[in-house]
């Protein structure tokens, strides 16, 4: 079920109620595990089997890793986990993509081969929970952590519903220890957790779905050629939409976990105020970028084997990171561009290591980063390269004579909201939400909380799925 639904409101109220009953800690954990399976199967019950497969394979792989005496056996257990998880991902997420590309390759050498259409439904959240379970085995393999002491704690780490389908991507060392000791949220934690959920749902239901998504759809999902203004507004709308959608999900997830007494890590840190791309990736989808860094970039050599290997590892990581988002070459292009930006930035930092920007230049560099981020979002949002080129052409003023697509309403609303997002990110750049709340008068917090809650209800969200569910 999605957070932005009436079903979730009832589900969460029941879970909170049951979790607060004076039951033994093990019983509470079993309740949370069962609730998490219900949460997941509420989409498509048979897909719970995949979740079980991923859970059981990695549990036994980690046990095998600990017991293995020989390095070859350790490799084998690690590979079992990687193949099982990535195999599921490859079949369900990339099966059609691989078959289509193989068919195109055959056609290019004159062999006509028409594969049967797969028609496979992508299990929700598979990219997220496979990465979470993989990190469990890989941490044990890399001797960074010991396996969980009992299966219940481990299964709950994989399945815990707040992070299950769209992150933050949890590491076992972040969550398993929290299940080992009884814990109960204080009244203030529940209230602050609910406030965080309100902020998250406001981002998703009001900003992303009600005010930004339509402008992006009108530009990206129509066959009209956009002029400069439409191309920019459509792209800015998407940049705001995807932030509000995904950061909204993460904030809601963090709030839900907090209400139950558990802590989850930050997944976003005001990314549109990033200065440079290494800064951007320290602020955007932090749990994915750090996962890719720890389990892909570093094992590929990281920065320990010379400049050439570093750049190759960087590009490889970002290309695969792009592909993780979706089975389409446009996502690979998106990841590749980010890899290129990171590589260029790395070279510039080494070449001009003494350079310290003035405050004005710092802001200009930040705006330049934001500009490039937006240009790159075009490949993320466009379904085809043809559409991406059409929008990019519009953005650089090459679609002369294009008819206007967006009415004044969209121009105004997108401009105001996106400017608000960027400005707030700059104001919050070096701060945390908690530090600002600490200094805000209580009455103002009440008023803002009430306004957000009112807007959520009045916006009447139609339960749209979060964008990242498809990844």
């Amino acid at each position, binding site marked *: *079920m999605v957070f932005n*639904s*009436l079903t979730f409101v009832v589900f969460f109220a029941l879970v909170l109620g049951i979790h607060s009953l004076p039951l033994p800690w093990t019983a509470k954990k079993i309740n949370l595990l069962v609730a998490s399976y219900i949460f997941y199967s*509420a*989409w498509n*019950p048979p897909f719970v089997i995949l979740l079980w497969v991923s859970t059981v394979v990695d549990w036994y792989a980690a046990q095998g890793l600990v017991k293995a005496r020989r390095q070859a056996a350790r490799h084998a257990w690690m590979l079992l986990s990687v193949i099982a998880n990535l195999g599921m991902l490859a079949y369900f997420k990339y099966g059609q993509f691989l078959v289509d590309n193989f068919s195109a390759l055959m056609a290019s050498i004159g062999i006509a081969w028409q594969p049967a259409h797969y028609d496979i439904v992508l299990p929700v959240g598979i990219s997220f929970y496979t990465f979470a379970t993989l990190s469990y085995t890989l*941490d044990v393999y890399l001797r*960074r952590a010991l396996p969980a002491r009992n299966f219940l704690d481990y299964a709950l780490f994989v399945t815990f519903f707040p992070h299950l389908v769209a992150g933050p991507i949890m590491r076992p*060392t*972040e969550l398993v*220890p*929290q299940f080992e000791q009884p*814990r109960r949220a*204080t*009244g*203030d*934690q529940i*209230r*602050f957790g609910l*406030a965080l959920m309100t902020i998250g749902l406001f981002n998703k239901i*009001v900003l992303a779905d*009600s005010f930004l998504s*339509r402008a992006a759809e009108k530009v990206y999902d129509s066959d009209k050629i956009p002029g400069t203004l439409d191309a920019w507004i459509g792209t800015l709308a998407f940049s705001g939409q995807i932030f509000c959608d995904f950061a909204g999900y993460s904030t809601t997830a963090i709030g839900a976990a907090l209400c139950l007494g*558990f*802590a989850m*890590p*930050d997944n976003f*840190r005001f990314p549109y105020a990033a200065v440079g791309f290494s800064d951007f990736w*320290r602020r955007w989808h*932090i749990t994915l*970028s*750090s996962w890719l860094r*720890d389990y892909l970039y570093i094992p590929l050599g990281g920065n320990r084997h010379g400049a050439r290997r570093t750049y190759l590892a960087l590009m490889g990581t970002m290309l695969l990171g792009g592909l993780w988002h979706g089975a389409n070459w446009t996502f690979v292009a998106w990841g590749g561009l980010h890899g290129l930006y990171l590589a260029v930035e790395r070279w510039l930092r080494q070449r001009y290591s003494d350079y310290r920007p003035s405050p004005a230049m710092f802001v200009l560099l930040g705006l330049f980063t934001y500009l490039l981020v937006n240009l790159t979002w075009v490949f993320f949002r466009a379904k085809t390269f043809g559409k991406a080129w059409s929008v990019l052409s519009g953005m650089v003023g090459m679609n002369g004579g294009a*008819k*206007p*697509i*967006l*009415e*004044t*309403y969209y*121009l105004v*609303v997108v401009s105001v909201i996106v400017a608000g997002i960027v400005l707030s990110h700059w104001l919050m750049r070096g701060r*945390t939400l*908690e*530090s600002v*709340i*600490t200094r805000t008068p*209580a009455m103002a*917090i*009440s*008023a803002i*909380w*009430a*306004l957000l*809650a*009112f807007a959520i*209800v*009045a*916006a*009447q969200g139609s339960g749209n799925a979060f964008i990242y569910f498809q990844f």
Partner: protein
Amino acid sequence: MRSGAFVDHDADAHERAIHARETASDRPGVAQPVPVRPVPKQPWATIAIGALVLSALLLGGWEWYWRDFGATPGIRNSDGLWAIQRRRIDNGEGDATVITASSRLFFDLQLDVWETLDGRRPIQLAWEGTTPVPFLEDLAADPKFTGRLLVGVAPELFFSGFAYRGKALKYARDESPAQRAGQWLSMNFVEPYLAFDEFDYALGTVLKRQAWPERPGKPNHLDVRKLAVTEADRNTHLWSKVENDPQYKALMRQIWEQDFVPSPDDPPAEEMAKERDVQIDRAVKAIATLRARGVQVLLIREPSTGPYLEYDNRLFPRASSWDVLVAKSGVPGIHFEDYPQLQGLELPEWSHLAHADAKRFTAALHEIVVREFWKADAPRAAHHER
């Protein structure tokens, strides 16, 4: 590993967590520790009560505003509501009379009147602003449907293939248990009590229809407003405000009039003719499948009047659209212009019948259908099946 999720007992650590919290990006290549999630020091109980009271006041004011406008609580015509009706065919009511149409037969055919005359309530599967052709194909592909089918033909939509609510079919096929539960909760515990819980009063919709200045080359388009009232089984009729509020009625007419004026964005005539033929062929094929299964199909061209009728006729003249559809499909058709008893009715905004006249229309239509078609057509359908 120390469980460090909450550090309220440690003032320094709390301050650090509040102001300068590390993330995984600060700790490369190591096992990530238990996250720190501090609660800002504030009187949260007072804040929560204040927020609760204030949001209740705001929502109360919003509800009052819409009730003052004339809105009353009702059932939302959602995809989930449609899916409930569609499932009836799969759950033992496949022999029922089913309606697939656009808004005209949706608003004009009153299920209670039909039930009184027929003894059985039809299943209403029509959608506003949407061609019934994909839904016709869906029913044709479902062997569980063996009943009778009334197909509403609103020329502008049927022959253009336009489908404002076309996603409903996919929604019904893919509807998750969570969505079903949400639909049940909403129609039992929210919709019957809140007047503002209506698509037309959503915050984004309300903001969009304000008097924004026009962008040169892109005039503001008035979106269709709330037109009808729907019940739990999708029995629907024109909203009384459209009939009784002259300003609102004028607005509805103004909204339709936007389409009556030819626009440079309109597809060329050849393209429209091509699309019309595609839609006719699709419908004919689906009807043939239904007939082969013994399903009686009846095409109905519901009333329109005034400028809307002129628009209908200009866009898709009867001779090249309706008449061709009836001839090619081989099923009977009822065109309102051929039946005096289906004329002279009140259509406040030229396209849909006033509630009282919708009841009269339903009774008259039922009489025609039973007398002239159901009985007469039954042997033909059976013969076709053989």
